[in-house]
């Protein structure tokens, strides 16, 4: 016997049909499939973009053994993360408008027509919950506000799988309805609404994207960062005070551990050949800013330690704890001539908040892995 999931279930008594459950309790011209399908198309593209860029960022930060992250293009991570956050912000108007266009479904009568209908409503619940969660948690992360005990990157990552999965499922379920709705043209009033949503996306983007797109910096009225605001003209994510770093004394030594290990004082480090690199700090939180860095090439230090070119190394900080107190530099980055242990930024010695006396700076690398207050370089 075949299980009939779409068999109608008994409807609840009509006496319960009150308040928002009344027929046509609230009608709006934008409650229409032609609007929903168009917003859904934009939202689908935006969420897919967020998912892919988020996945790239996840794997760059925690590379699995099969993946080698290239050190070029220099601006790779900057663009990836700028797009991730800008697209996420653009999703706010898109998601709110999309949900409003289907709001009557919330108080549809009867609430459950069949088992199949119940499953579909449950899948929509999962979709809405995960989509709202991703936008809210992302919005709070970019202002470094964590009013929850869980670890943001991992939770945001797994809920992203739930969100993208339920979106894909939703598209599969609704495919015929989407095709029908996209085939017919919205009325002029509905087109004005869609235009309004597009204007909202444009406005949200214009007032925030300057945190990574320097030419639009002066328009970034609501961005949590300005690329030119910070010590030495560059924003800071983790301050020396937050990391509990004390200024180093004359006994500071940089240890390079390899086949021929050695130590360098700050004066010896400054006496080595210095190189310049113009590289961005590109934060996972979506802001980025270019600095002019000056310091010693990592590959020169490794060569002196007798390590073969392209060795993987671990760079450790003076920080005693913290998730990012050390980072691994893989082959492509350690061989790249632009990867420096920098002593200067924009023409002056590093300030404590930028990682004095020495910090790592490498091309195409997330800001959290540009280890500050470096004390040890170890060949792996």
């Amino acid at each position, binding site marked *: 016997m075949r299980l009939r999931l779409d068999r109608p279930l008994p409807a609840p008594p009509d006496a319960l049909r009150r308040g928002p459950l009344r027929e046509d309790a609230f009608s709006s011209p934008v409650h229409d499939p032609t609007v929903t399908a168009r917003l859904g198309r934009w939202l689908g593209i935006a969420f897919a973009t967020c998912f892919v860029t988020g996945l790239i960022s996840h794997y760059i930060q925690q590379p699995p053994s099969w993946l080698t992250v290239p050190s070029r293009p220099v601006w790779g991570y900057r663009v990836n993360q700028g797009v991730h956050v800008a697209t996420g912000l653009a999703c706010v108007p898109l998601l709110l408008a999309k949900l409003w266009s289907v709001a009557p479904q919330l108080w549809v009568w009867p609430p459950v027509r069949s088992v199949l209908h119940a499953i579909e409503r449950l899948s929509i619940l999962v979709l809405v919950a995960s989509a709202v969660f991703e936008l809210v948690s992302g919005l709070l992360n970019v202002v470094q506000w964590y009013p929850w005990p869980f670890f943001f990157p991992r939770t945001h990552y797994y809920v992203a799988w739930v969100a993208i999965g339920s979106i894909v499922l939703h598209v599969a379920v609704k495919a015929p309805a989407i095709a029908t709705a996209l085939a017919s043209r919205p009325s002029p009033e509905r087109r004005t609404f869609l235009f309004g949503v597009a204007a909202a996306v444009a406005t949200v983007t214009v007032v925030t994207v300057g945190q990574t797109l320097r030419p639009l910096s002066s328009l970034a*009225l609501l961005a949590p960062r300005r690329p030119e605001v910070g010590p030495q003209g560059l924003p800071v994510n983790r301050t020396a005070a937050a990391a509990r770093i004390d200024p180093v004394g004359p006994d500071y030594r940089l240890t390079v551990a390899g086949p021929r290990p050695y130590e360098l004082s700050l004066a010896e480090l400054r006496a080595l050949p210095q190189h310049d690199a113009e590289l961005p700090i590109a934060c996972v939180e979506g802001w980025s800013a270019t600095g002019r860095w000056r310091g010693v090439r990592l590959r020169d230090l490794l060569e002196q330690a007798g390590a073969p070119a392209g060795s993987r190394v671990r760079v450790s900080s003076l920080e005693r704890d913290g998730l990012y107190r050390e980072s691994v530099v893989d082959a492509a980055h350690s061989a790249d001539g632009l990867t420096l242990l920098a002593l200067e930024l924009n023409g002056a010695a590093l300030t404590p908040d930028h990682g004095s006396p020495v910090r790592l700076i490498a091309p195409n690398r997330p800001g959290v892995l540009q280890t500050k207050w470096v004390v040890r370089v170890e060949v792996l």
Partner: protein
Amino acid sequence: MTGVRAWRLALGVAGVAAVLFGLRGLLTGGPATDWPVTATWLLAGVLVHDLVVVPVVAGVGWLLARWLPEGVRPVVRGGLVVAATVTVVALPVLNAPGDPRNPSLMPLDYPRNLAVVLGVVGAVTVVLAVHRRWRAGRAAGPRAGAG
């Protein structure tokens, strides 16, 4: 089974697989994903949307339909969409505690900036609405005279 049906089925299966992978990660993540807390946040988002956002939008829509002439309603609705979503996006920078040790985090006067943005959005909306009325009036004018 037709090609389109097979394609939809494959998409649906892939979607369910992704959802299950995400849920498994949340449930087995321990304190890093703290699933009871995450579940509460997931549900709270839906409840805030359904019980606060939707009634507020419906109420504003009702007022719009009651008080505004039909011709300018779409333009005002669009203006409100822009103003409301910009405000939602600004909520974190307006309310986050920040870090007094880090002046590069949220360095701007956000209440003032939001007022500027909303002022511009309001002005553009009024100009567009007046323009619509004027155009509608001009279109109706000669016809009334000829009658």
